């Protein structure tokens, strides 16, 4: 009976998420308003950014406040590849992601010796350096003027004219990001990352190469942020240093923290809520950010662990997944070891 219940629960969860995804996929059919579609696309971008930062800052526990730099590198690399080399967006965005991943490696290296506040300062510096390079490397980035005229994506003879194909593109990227992050965090490697965030010395003392794990987590995080940046460049068809500032890094970090550190649903909810608030408050014009700040304080007071706290994390997820596939029996053999005398 218990098994039956578990399996039906498992299938019910799958059915619910399937229905949810179909609804999301059908949205453009019901909403013809360009503004709403634009907001949804922006939310998709925020979701990718917060999920990617969550791997480093949530799961691995390495505070990073320079995430917008990765977003910016991905955007500029993609933009340059499309403008100068006429590459298709299908090639340019992944290359942008890979180049950004390389910068993730570079930023991951100092984690060898730095942790906590000191690492945060380094990531802050990294973010500023990237922004200043974008601003001052006139020959390549055209400085504050930015790079306009990124061509609309083409798939064969189909050219992206309305916002709807962009919506589906970002939808697919979000799905890939969520699926990848889920696989990573629900694996032995994911457990190692959580172990590092909990007690780095203990993790090392049970054989985890903490340096390697931290660097890999930076690389993956940067890759997805770079992909988000690449999509952003293609979507807006213009990039300038203004889009990748310290405030943007903080915004993504707020999404991760308020959503719930080390939680995938948390990052998604955080991105959606914090992405929507400024849009909903648009009618208040310049008072908008004031209210936004006040709301943040209220959220922190009432939901200190975030909207979807890591405490809701499924326990023993790896074993339960195998149990659902009928590959492992979760029954325990004996509550006590046989060898204990007198037992």
């Amino acid at each position, binding site marked *: 009976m218990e098994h039956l219940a578990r399996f039906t629960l498992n299938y019910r969860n799958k059915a619910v998420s399937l229905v949810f995804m179909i609804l999301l996929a059908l949205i453009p059919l019901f909403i013809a308003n360009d503004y709403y579609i634009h907001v949804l696309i922006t939310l998709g971008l925020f979701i990718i950014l917060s999920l990617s930062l969550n791997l480093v800052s949530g799961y691995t526990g390495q505070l990073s406040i320079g995430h917008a730099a990765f977003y910016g590198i991905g955007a500029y690399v993609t933009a340059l590849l499309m403008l100068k080399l006429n590459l298709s967006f299908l090639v340019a965005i992944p290359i942008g992601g890979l180049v950004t991943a390389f910068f993730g490696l570079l930023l991951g290296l100092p984690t060898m010796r730095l942790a906590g506040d000191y690492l945060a300062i380094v990531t802050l510096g990294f973010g500023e350096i990237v922004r200043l390079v974008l601003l001052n490397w006139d020959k390549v980035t055209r400085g504050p003027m930015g790079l306009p005229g990124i061509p609309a994506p083409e798939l064969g003879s189909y050219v992206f004219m309305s916002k709807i194909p962009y919506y589906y593109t970002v939808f697919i990227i979000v799905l890939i990001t969520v699926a990848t992050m889920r696989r990573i965090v629900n694996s032995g490697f994911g457990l190692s990352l959580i172990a590092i965030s909990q007690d780095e010395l203990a993790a090392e003392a049970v054989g985890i190469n903490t340096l390697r794990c931290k660097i890999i987590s930076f690389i993956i995080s940067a890759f997805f942020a770079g992909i988000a940046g690449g999509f952003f460049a293609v979507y807006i068809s213009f990039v300038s240093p203004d889009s990748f500032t310290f405030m943007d890094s903080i915004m993504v970090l707020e999404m991760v923290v308020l959503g719930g550190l080390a939680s995938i649903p948390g990052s998604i909810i955080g991105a959606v809520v914090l992405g929507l608030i400024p849009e909903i408050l648009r009618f208040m014009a310049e008072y908008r950010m004031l209210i936004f700040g006040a709301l943040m304080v209220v959220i922190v007071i009432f939901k200190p662990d975030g909207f979807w706290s890591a405490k809701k994390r499924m326990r023993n997820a790896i074993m339960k997944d*195998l149990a659902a596939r009928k590959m492992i029996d979760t029954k325990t053999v*004996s509550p006590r070891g046989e060898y204990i005398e007198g037992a």
Partner: protein
Amino acid sequence: MNILKVLDIDSVTIRFGGLEAIRDVSFAVDEGELLAIIGPNGAGKTTIFNAMTGIYRPTQGNILFKGQLINGLKPNQLVLKGIARTFQNIRLFSALTVLENVMVGWQCRSREGLWGALAGGKRVAVNRVEAINQCREYIEMVGLADLMEELATNLPYGKQRLLEIARALATGCNLLLLDEPAAGMNALEREELISLIRHISKNLRKTIILIEHDINLVMNISERIVVLDHGEKIAEGTPGEIRTNQKVIEAYLGSEDPLEQEVV
């Protein structure tokens, strides 16, 4: 049988600035032996553990594991070589479950890696089944099978210590270092701990080095004892020899039968 020295501490000195925490200490452990290190507080017991597990590097002298020099290797490299430990001040991954804590210990034996996790598939799943089943064996061995889904932080103190032992065993170590495993345990838990340590030593054939203040426990299970005081080795021998050793008696406050007092 050919007796191999598993661990050889060869005139090791550890200095922190002007402070000499360990001065010219030498001892060795044979394959399968159960050795205890005792000594008053501040004698340098945990310091020498930290040197054996790569947390500190000896200022002078050599540490050999299975004949290989291991000075300066990192803790995770030493685990791969076969040395695992528990901590005096329990260091579990508090947000992870009992099973997951042990699985983190198993990671260094896992062939899955990041690519396996991303690719998934049948082979990865089979590996995971094997890993989980072995981890569950360790958990059952230490008597925590009915708490597999509990978060480590919710376990009572004594059970947390047992979980640390299971996590250390999951690394597949040959040499197990236990830093005050009985601290904070009640009498019944101590009894169970003693049979667990015997089981690990006799049936799993692990070499064990133990730091412990509970002299009864030490006298009860160890085959040989090394006594440290003020960073120096003052005695080494069987429990019987240590019990009557004059230097040891003096180190323990000079009272007539100090080892008995320590039990309280």
